[in-house]
């Protein structure tokens, strides 16, 4: 990290290209813009779209994935679609969403959810499929209702994989929310990017990017930490 930071600084100071200002300048800009209303409005808008989108992706993705893992029929019906959407360039779908859902926040949220949901579904499904069969038999033999089996066995047994999926899904959602903001309507961080790069304010541009990377990195590290905590017992299963 430090080496790369120094390299950045050197390249910036050498004034090789206007595209890369010195890191110190970027950081100075970062602290100067972080308090501005424009930045905070962008942060609030982005965070809102991001969290709502991720919440939808998780709330829909996990149950769908678990049900796919449990039901052969559902799995065969849905798996091809999940795989298609997982690997498809979703950016190309954004114009379609704009037609369907308009140019507002709704489309951005849906874009975010679409970026995150497929890997969450796939991982939850994988988590359920690897469940120890005798745990399922055990629940059955003690008379667990389908609802009980779902919440007391399947969810917990698949939790390490589910969390892994959520972590990757959230990283993808960061992409989704920015692409949504850039393509659908110029709001939030997308608007800032657009504004700064159009005006060649590279210091500002990089500052926002650093904030964004830091946010994505923090969230992903937090989830990785949760995952490790859960894997602690899960590896012993």
């Amino acid at each position: 990290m430090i080496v790369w930071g120094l390299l950045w600084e050197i390249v910036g100071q050498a004034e090789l290209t206007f595209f890369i200002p010195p890191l110190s300048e970027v950081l100075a800009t970062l602290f100067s813009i972080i308090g501005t209303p424009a930045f905070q409005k962008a942060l609030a808008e982005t965070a809102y779209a991001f969290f709502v989108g991720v919440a939808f992706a998780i709330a829909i993705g996990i149950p769908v994935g678990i049900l796919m893992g449990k039901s052969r029929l559902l799995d065969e019906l849905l798996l091809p679609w999940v795989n298609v959407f997982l690997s498809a360039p979703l950016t190309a779908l954004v114009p379609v969403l704009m037609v369907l859902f308009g140019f507002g926040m709704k489309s951005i949220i849906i874009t975010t959810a679409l970026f995150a949901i497929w890997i969450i579904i796939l991982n939850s499904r994988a988590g359920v499929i690897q469940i120890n069969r005798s745990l399922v038999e055990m629940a059955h033999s003690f008379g667990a209702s389908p609802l009980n089996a779902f919440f007391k066995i399947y969810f917990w047994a698949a939790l390490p994989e589910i969390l892994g999926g959520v972590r990757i899904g959230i990283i993808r959602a960061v992409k989704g929310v920015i692409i949504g903001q850039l393509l659908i309507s110029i709001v939030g961080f997308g608007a800032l990017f657009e504004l700064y790069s159009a005006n060649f304010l590279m210091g500002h541009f990089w500052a926002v990017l650093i904030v964004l990377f830091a946010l994505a990195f923090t969230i992903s590290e937090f989830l990785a930490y949760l995952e490790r905590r859960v894997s602690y017992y899960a590896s012993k299963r």
Partner: protein
Amino acid sequence: MAMSPIKEVTAQTTPMEFESAVSVRNISKNYGDVEALRDMSLEFPRGQLTSLLGPSGCGKTTLLKIIAGLLEPTSGQVEVNGKTVSGPGKDRAFVFQDFALLPWATVIRNVAFGLEMRGVAASEREAIAEKYIKEVGLAGFEQSYPHELSGGMRQRVGLARALAVDSDVLLMDEPFSAVDEQTRRKFQEDLLNLVQIENKTFIFVTHSIEEAVYVSDQIAILLPRPSRVSEIIRPSSFRDKGVDNIRRDPEYLDIVDNIWASLRGYVE
């Protein structure tokens, strides 16, 4: 066939004059073209321990899971206390070969799991679970997680969970096969005590001849291809001589030898 000596042993025992807790009637089970069980009938006397013993592939675990209601027979029926089995029920509890504990739950939650599924209130089921944790000798480990316990202790948790729901019939699928030899011996002694104290019917699947003869009131020998009950042996004389004397009792040794003689031909 070397089966006649076994018949002599059976002949010494009292004729069938017990009440059945579990009756297996003409059970067949096919997996596609493969015949796992063919027209099998067997009675399990109340309050006693019956072993299902046989070489691998003789369908003993399949039969146990049919009795548990975890598998559907292709034809025939199982009756528990006179009622036909159509799925898992409160009258039966299962002890699993690989323990089947919830790795994310403490010992006490694992033991209380069956009660939780039956909708028993939290405080009540924990009190019951604590009692059975003590009974299987795990007092002090209530808040431990399964991975912190040895294999033998984990199976004690599995046993406590099955006891906690207070079913009439306890189904045990090779419960001691995944624990070490010394733990296993201790388990067998404890199981004999358990059969004495708890007024339950035990059905016990094993592939160990010594284990079957040691713990059983009745041993059903199953043979493969096609699966059938070839013998029912009821050891009579050594049951009351105390756990320490069984293994050197002449009848015990004879039965072990005879069973081996009849199974030898089926072991690859």
